[in-house]
């Protein structure tokens, strides 16, 4: 494999320093058949896949939902549900699932392209609690009856799920949870409180971490993973209104809620294992590069429309540099994710890059909302929640794009807190990667 004999410089090869050219040789191909090492071009198969996704999105994404996503308006339960049903019909609702459970069998690259295209087309997210969270726990650790009962209804969208993890005393320190489940014959009796429960007010079921053995030696032991019907007597959902004025999250109270023992996933007191599995399962797309690209494009449109000293804000050197700097960081994030993707494609186990992608991904999302806030200037002030609801027909106050900007900025502070705060993520990287 040396370069000699190809009209190249004559090489004297030292035994401890064998030189290999590293050239991509079109005549002989590279080490792997049909593979051109190190390139950023999509293969024709991936291009064809991307075109297929684009065509599907162009014809199947309902225009009114697309418009609401594009304009930053609120989405209702039915918006999410109808898009979920459309994807289910197409067979694309759970790309991460094994094929025999209803997954797509896509490659890592195809999943990446799919995420990018759906974001670019302004499709809503799929609510993650069923498809990306409890679903994988059930098909990995659940029994046959649980799989048969829950998985098809997660895929079809008939069942909505929410996540019962955090508690008032168990945030970053999740293992400190106190919600109690006491065995009483064929049921567990559950008492306690969950909090920050996204879409609990829309959900049919909640998957809960509960304490079944308070005497266990370590807090991580003695926790179990329970599936609970939200219509069970004794459950009360109370909204938590966030600083943007929105209602996404809730407190969920449990008072003598009776849960059949067949709703226990896996073994009693082994719930922490399943909880950790769940946290590690959904790595793909954690950086949300596609959505940030879309948001950045929106920010550029705002900056082009806003005036500063009589000229477009986008031509203001200072603001232009802020956007450029953000855009470079987004490129760095994108290529860091693509590098991770390549490693996975060549069979390496995913490492802790997900933690880094979460940290940087959310920081970038927040900076985009911050620059949009700066861009709209004083029209960040008017607070007219009705303007963000579909069907509001009054004259906008200020530019139309300004209405959602401040709420989005305030709402998005959640991103560096949820899913393990960014400080917790750094702690994990320090421990697992740096071994500090």
């Amino acid at each position, binding site marked *: 494999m040396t370069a000699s004999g190809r009209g*190249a410089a004559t*090489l004297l090869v030292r035994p401890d320093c064998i030189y290999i*050219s*590293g050239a991509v040789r079109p005549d002989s191909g590279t080490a792997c058949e049909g593979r051109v090492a190190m390139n950023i071009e999509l293969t024709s198969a991936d291009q064809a896949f991307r075109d297929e996704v684009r065509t599907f999105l162009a014809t199947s994404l309902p225009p009114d939902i697309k418009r609401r996503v594009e304009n930053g308006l609120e989405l209702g339960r039915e918006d999410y549900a109808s898009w979920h049903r459309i994807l289910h019909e197409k067979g694309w609702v759970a790309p991460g699932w094994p094929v025999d459970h209803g997954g797509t069998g896509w490659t890592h690259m195809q999943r990446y392209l799919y995420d990018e295209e759906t974001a670019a087309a302004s499709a809503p997210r799929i609510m993650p609690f069923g498809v990306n969270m409890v679903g994988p726990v059930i098909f990995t650790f659940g029994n046959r009856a649980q799989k048969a009962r829950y998985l098809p209804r997660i895929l079809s969208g008939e069942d909505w799920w929410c996540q019962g993890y955090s508690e008032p005393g168990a945030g970053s320190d999740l293992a400190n949870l106190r919600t109690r489940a006491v065995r009483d014959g064929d049921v567990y009796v559950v008492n306690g409180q969950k909090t920050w429960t996204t879409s609990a007010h829309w959900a049919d079921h909640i998957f809960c971490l509960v304490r079944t053995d308070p005497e266990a030696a370590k807090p991580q032991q003695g926790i179990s993973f329970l599936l609970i019907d939200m219509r069970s007597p004794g459950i009360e959902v109370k909204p938590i209104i966030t600083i943007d004025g929105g209602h996404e999250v809730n407190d969920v109270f449990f008072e003598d809620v009776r849960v059949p023992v067949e709703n226990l996933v896996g073994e009693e007191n082994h719930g922490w294992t399943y909880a950790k599995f769940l946290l590690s399962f959904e790595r793909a797309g954690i950086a949300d590069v596609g959505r940030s690209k879309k948001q950045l494009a929106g920010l550029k449109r705002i900056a082009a429309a806003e005036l500063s000293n009589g000229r477009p804000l986008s031509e203001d050197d200072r603001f232009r540099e802020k956007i450029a700097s953000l855009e470079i960081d987004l490129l760095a994030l994108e290529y*860091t994710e693509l590098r991770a993707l390549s490693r996975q494609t060549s069979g390496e186990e995913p490492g802790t890059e997900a933690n880094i992608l979460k940290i940087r991904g959310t920081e970038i999302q927040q900076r985009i909302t911050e620059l949009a806030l700066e861009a709209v200037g004083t029209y960040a002030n008017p607070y007219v929640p009705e303007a963000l609801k579909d069907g509001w027909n009054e004259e906008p106050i200020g530019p139309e794009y300004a209405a959602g900007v401040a709420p989005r900025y305030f709402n998005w502070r959640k991103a560096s807190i949820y899913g393990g705060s960014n400080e917790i993520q750094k702690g994990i990287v320090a421990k697992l*990667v740096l071994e500090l």
Partner: protein
Amino acid sequence: MDLSYSEDHTLLSESIARFIQNDYDFETRSRIAGSDLGFDPAVWQQFADLGWLAIPFSEDEGGLGADPVSVMILMEQFGRGLVLEPYVPSILLGGRLIAATGGAEQRSRYLGDLISGKIQLAFGHGEPGGRYALAHVATRAEGGAGGFTLSGQKAVVHNAEAADFIIVSARSSGEVRAQDGISLFVVSRETPGLTVRPYRTVDGLRAAELVLEGVQVGEDALLGEEGGAYPAIEAVTDRAVAAVCSEAVGAMDLLRETTLEYLKTRQQFGRTLGAFQVLQHRAVDMLIACEEARSLALMATLSLDRTAPERRRAVSAAKAHVGNAGRKVGQEAVQLHGGMGVTDELKVGHYFKRLTMIDTFFGDAAHHLDRFAGNA
């Protein structure tokens, strides 16, 4: 898309890493830095013998026809070893300029000797007051009977004293910052009228100020078309900038690893520094900076053969990011080493200085941020 190394890439990377490990430890490097020449001709000859000087040249040019990723790999390892030998000025600038603009006769006259290690080159381009504007050329080229007369000054020309030939940019027409009107000339360092004022740089390299007073060169000194050199200068410097970004990635990685090792061994208050959360998070921030710099250096490298706007945008994104990341990682490495970090004895400060000077190589972070924004 595939961002993993081929087998050839991996072998190249390993072979250069072995060279650094066996033949270029920090002590050796310090000895070479203190020598009169500032690099080791025997090491340079070794590079030639191993084919490393041939990597960025096509087979037509007498090279190996290797891809830009091979240059990236080489430079990353050179960054890890803080290699002093003038690969960038001699090969990536001087050699590539001749390859990109020279006629067949010029290429055969210089490139063979360059690749075999016989001659050294340099690129005299930047000028006092020009800052990072690539088209800023005030040096004049007056055409006359049988050749040209060059007059002007060149600033911080790396490897000028050791160079047998210096590629000098000069203007035969147009305003000082116009892209049109710039030509390139091969000037022997011994040419009368050329004064070379050499000095050491803070990062242990060698550079010089050049003064050209009525320097006479023949017609055969002109590379390419008179007045039309700018696009080649931009393309060649973009390639060199991408390569230097990879050098920075190697240097940053080495600094980060060295700092991490220190955090794990240095004891204060009865425990290792790495047990303190405030330092753990800073170590993670360094890791993120290194990983992102690596991602963008790779992006830039893979964009070099795309369209000029794509290339500009990618290279400037990488250089802007690397400038900031290099400063951050360098400063943090010194800070986390405490008092030891500011001593000449530790390698930390030497890597920090190299990273700091890399930021000034053909445009700092602010310059490239602006160039990126202009190509959005």
